[in-house]
Every structure is written in C-alpha cells, then in structure tokens.
C-alpha cells in the first residue's frame, strides 16, 4: 500500500524495516541515537530497537567504519552514518584499503555487508564541508558499490537492497531532497539496485543524472519541452556499477548526451560516462558528450553555491550547445 512521505522518512522506514526483519542489522554513527541524526533520518530507531542495535559512536569516522568492518566479520550487517559528505575522509583509509578489499583478500571467504550512508551535495546553505559530492572518489575504487536515490520510493527500496547486499555499498543521500515527498510502496517488487531508469522519454537528447540532479534534469526537460525540444531523462541511481546499457540504448536513439552532477566535472562521473558512451556509440553521436557540474574549486561559501552548482539555465545552455552540433 503506497504512501506519500519525505525522502528522509522513507530511509527511516527502510532502516526500521531492516532492523525489524534481521537481528543482525545495526545502525551506527554520531548522534544517530536519541537525536535521531542531524537530519532525523534515524529518528525513533534507538528508542524502539535499543542502544545495542542503534549505536551512538565516539566522534571518530575511521573508528566507526573500522569497527563496522569488525562487526561484519562477526556476522553483523552494520549501516553506518557519516554525518556529512565532508566528514567521510577520516574513514577513507578503512573504506579503501580494508572495506573494499577484504572480500578479495580473503578469496571470497569473508563478506562485507556494510552500508555507509552519506548525506551529500549542496543547496542547503551550509558551512564548509557540508555540501560536497565525493562520489567519484569511491567509484574509482574496486570493491565498493556506489548508489544514490533521487526520490523517496527509490530511497526506501535501494536502502533495503543495499542492506541485503553482501558487498559494501556507499549510499549517497541527496540531502537537499530529504524533505521532498514521494510515493513509497513497501509492498512493491523493486527492480535491480544498479539499473538506471528512464524517467522521461524523449527523442532529441539524453540528460543523465543521479541523486539531487534528477529533479533538476526533469525541470530542464519540462522547460525545454516548452521550446519544442524533446529530452529524454535518465536517473542512473547507481554510480558503480554504471548502467551503460541503458544509457547506450537511449543515446542510440537521441544521439546526444548531457551528463549533470554536482561534483566537480574534472575527473567526475561525467568523464567516465562520456568516455565509455563515446566508445560505445561513436557512430551514433552527433555531438560530443557534454558535462555540467561543479567547477574545479573548493565548494564555495553558501552565498555562491547557486553560481557553483548546476542550475536550470546552465543545463539548458549546455543542452542548446549539444543540439547546435
């Protein structure tokens, strides 16, 4: 029975369901207990599942991920919260050298079912380190899976699937969409976690995005439609693996591709998508794959973030550029 709820609430419900159905699932992080996390994503969970399942940790991200690895070795399935994107780096060593590689190191004899939740991205007027999009830094690392839902329904189901996965999943939550409401159907049968979805069909150009930028691309497509341009919009949902098949199918139809993400363009996911789709669709493309994203600069102070982030005009501008080829 579908219900309308905010994206943050959908994740909360998904965590609740996981805690209910599998006693090995744990939620851990800074302030996830009584406070329910700074975004209230874990609201009420400690009250209902107790301090030994929903764990307020010391303020040490490497420690959080490192102990989560140990708990996974003991058979638990920890869901770890990193409070903000910019605070994942103290844990980066444990994620890259241990979490990502343990399964391979053990020749498959141990599994690492750890989910790392990271509220990410900008647009909320925050101070430094609270608005970054570091997904590239995880996608490059073999052994990790990287996903990001764009809406409440996906948030619910992708979290279920991430927790069920025997691989470590970096789960990027689009924090500026936390309060956006969407349909959640806990009875639905979800598609595969790493499959992209066509969220708007079109013929003239393909816009691809994930997480917070999907909504922007939908708005751009709507605006373009008023000018008679028929854009297809893809919600990638997964950054590693990337669903190149779905992108390719779309580009073979539209022959033009624009990738949009908040992360800096340089070495961003747009680069990988452009490189591979150009290889796969070399004779189909009428224009180079164009990219819209952050600049090669530290995430700026809040009063500049609108200029820094991809916005409607920049997306439309780039669409026009691609169409002009």
């Amino acid at each position, binding site marked *: 029975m579908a219900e309308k709820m905010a994206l943050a609430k959908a994740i909360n419900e998904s965590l609740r369901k996981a805690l209910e159905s599998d006693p090995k699932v744990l939620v851990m992080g800074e302030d996830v207990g009584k*406070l329910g996390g*700074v975004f209230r994503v874990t609201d009420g969970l400690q009250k209902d599942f107790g301090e030994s399942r929903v764990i307020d940790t010391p303020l040490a991200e490497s420690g959080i991920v490192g102990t989560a690895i140990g708990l996974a070795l003991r058979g638990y399935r920890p869901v770890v919260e990193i409070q903000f994107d910019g605070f994942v780096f103290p844990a980066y060593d444990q994620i890259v050298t241990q979490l990502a590689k343990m399964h391979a190191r053990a020749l498959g004899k141990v599994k690492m079912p750890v989910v790392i939740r990271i509220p990410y991205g900008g647009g909320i007027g925050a101070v430094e380190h609270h608005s970054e999009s570091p997904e590239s830094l995880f996608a490059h690392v073999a052994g990790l899976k990287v996903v990001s839902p764009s809406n409440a329904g996906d948030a619910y189901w992708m979290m279920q699937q991430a927790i069920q996965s025997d691989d470590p999943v970096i789960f990027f939550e689009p924090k500026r969409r936390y309060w956006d409401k969407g349909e959640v159907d806990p009875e639905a049968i979800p598609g595969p976690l790493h499959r992209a979805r066509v969220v708007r069909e079109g013929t003239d150009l393909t816009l691809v995005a994930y997480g917070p930028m999907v909504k922007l691309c939908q708005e751009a497509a709507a605006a373009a439609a008023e000018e008679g341009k028929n854009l297809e919009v893809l919600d990638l949902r997964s950054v590693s693996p990337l669903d190149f098949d779905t992108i390719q199918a779309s580009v073979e139809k539209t022959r033009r591709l624009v990738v949009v993400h908040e992360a800096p363009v340089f070495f961003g996911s747009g680069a990988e998508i452009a490189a591979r789709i150009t290889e796969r669709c070399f004779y189909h493309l009428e224009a180079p794959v164009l990219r819209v994203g952050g600049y090669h600069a530290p995430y700026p*102070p809040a009063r500049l973030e609108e200029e820094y982030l991809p916005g409607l005009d920049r997306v439309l501008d780039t669409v026009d550029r691609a169409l002009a080829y």
Partner: protein
Amino acid sequence: MTVESTAARKPRRSAGGKAGATGTGTAAEATGTAAKATGAKRATRTSRAAAGKGTAEPQLVQLLTPEGERVKNAEYDPYVADITPEELRGLYRDMVLTRRFDAEATSLQRQGELGLWASLLGQEAAQIGSGRALRDDDYVFPTYREHGVAWCRGVDPANLLGMFRGVNNGGWDPNGNNFHLYTIVIGSQTLHATGYAMGVAKDGADSAVIAYFGDGASSQGDVAESFTFSAVYNAPVVFFCQNNQWAISEPTEKQTRVPLYQRAQGYGFPGVRVDGNDVLGCLAVTKWALERARRGEGPTLVEAYTYRMGAHTTSDDPTRYRHDDERAAWEAKDPILRLRRYLEASNHTDEAFFVELEAESEALGRRVREAVRSMPDPDHFAIFENVYADGHALVDEERAQFAAYQASFADAPEGGN
C-alpha cells in the same frame, strides 16, 4: 587594561607570564596520582553523574568558587598572584562583551542574517581565561566555537561571522593576529598546531602554540597523533580541551570512560583538569602550561571542565537529548556571575563600571549587527579565486567559461541595456 580586541595589541615578545619554577613537578605528580582512579570497574557504564562527580571533581583546579570566593592553590596561585583589579575587571569585561557578541550572533541567525551560529554560551571563562594567558607572539588554533579567544586575540568580531553568513569560509588573515582560521573538521587543527609548534622550536623562538578542541574531538585519531608528535618532538604546544559535556547529542561518556585530562600521561606529558567556568583558574593553568612550553618542557593537556549552555548550533534542538535541570545546575556555576561576585566582594568595582559596560555591550551589539547587515555578498568570480596560489590552467578555463556564461545573461532580452 584589557582593551577591546580590535584596538592595539601588546608588542611581540612581551615580558610573558610570571611563572617561576614552581608548579611543574608537583603538577605532574598530581597527574600521576590521579591515574590511580583509572583502574577499570566492572560496571563502566555507570550514570554520568557518578562518573562526572565521584571520580573527577577532586582533581579539579579551582581558584574561584561558584560563589565567587577565592580558593588558595599553592600550585597555580603564583600564576595570578600579581593580577591587578584593573586586569580582573578586564577579564570580566571580556566575558560580558563576548557573551553579548554571541547573543547578537544568535539573534542575527534567527533573523536570517546568518545561516548558522555556534554559541559559546557558558564557555566564556575557559576561553577568556586561556585567551588572556597568551602572549601576542603565541599562536592559536581554534575550532569553530572560540569566539572568546578570537576576541582576546583582537580579531574583529564581525570577521568571525563571515563563514556563518556564508560569504566566505574563513577569511581573516591568520597571521594578522596569530589566530588561525576556524577549523570545522573535528580534530584536524591539533596537528596543525603541533606542526606549527615544531616550527617554533626549530626557529629557536620561545613562543608557544595553543590548540583548542572539544570533548568529542578527543576521540579523533588526529588528536591522538598530535599527542604523539608533540611528545616525540617536545613541541611547545598546549592542548586546550573544552569539555563542555556534549558533542552535539552525545555526552562525554560516549567518548571516554575516564576524565579526559588523564589521556596525556599515556603519551608522556602532564594533563590537568581545571574548572572551566573559573576564569582565574583557566588563566593560571594555561599560563603554567604555556610557561612549560616556553621552557622547552613540551606539550601539556588542559581540560577545562565546563558546559555548553545552549544548543550545539542554531540548527540543533537539545531538548531531544538532555534535561533542562542539567542546564539549570550549571547556571549556578555561571562564569560571569562568579567573577562579578568576587569583584563586588573585593570592592574592585563600582556601579559606574557595570553601567558603562552595559552601554559598551549595547554598542558592540549594534556595531556587529550593522557590520553583518552591510556585509556584501561575494563577487561571483570569487569561486575561482585563491584555488591555487600559482594558478591552474583548468581554473582559468572554467573562469573564462563562467564569464562567458554570465555575459550571456547580459545579452538576453530581459537583461536590459
């Protein structure tokens, strides 16, 4: 006299503290003894009250009781022995003005002028006491809450608001007042302080460095590494931990099961806990620690035992995780009130002092309000400024694209002219 921080500062390499050779040995001894309480108990998850009070308070250095009575302390009295009534009034004034500034910032946030504010309410004594212990040539590495220390260093209070307003990510010149930028990533600055102090030692200077951090920060690996590096290189750094009992919603027992000042011994340097709401105590203990650093005796950990009276930041709602009576109990230990009681009992002040200070306070509030309201938004091109000192081809390329893009709006019909 303690001057408003924007005014002229004492010359570098001024006379420094009044420390003799006293203190040191015995203080280290006290630390050693304290360690005896460390042996782990079967039930370690005892209630906070028990942990906080039973074990810890005996070791608390306190020169001024909550009632404003001066307590004798052979160890640390020498460091405030020749303090003048004028200097005492200066400390009082610093605390009052810092609190006023802080309240103004909170209300500016409520009015939408700031995106966020991290209040220091309740921590004035820890910050003013330690801040006033410093010499001008010392160097400060703050967290994001050291508004009182910034005040002591002479940083223009309006400057502190830039990052909370979202017009910059810091932006004052750290070398202007030997006060580093606010650091948000918890614990990082303790390593910068240690490195800086290693440099001071290399230079053969007798300056000291002070690194501020919180009870929560004590868990970060970086803080532990700064203890190791500073001990190994014998760096002249004071680690000043404001244990305000909370790291957002987590009480200190989520970070440690023994008092934090004890952490230092295991790294081979002394730790001491001081009443963080006692400005005299904080001044004395910090001076002692700074003198150790200057004398080449290496790092010290000072734990200022205090309380975060307000929310973590204006985004926080502490009613979700703590009881009001805890706050009420700490209100009785207010740092400003206790110094006022002492000043009044010692006849160091008259009515006029308080009246004038009230007026000065209001003027400061007004000045800050106006400064914030008139703070211009940054130029859009600031995104591309200072990414590199020596430039970077991609930044140049993106700046040019951005300029062209911006210009395209000017051409657009609704852009006019």
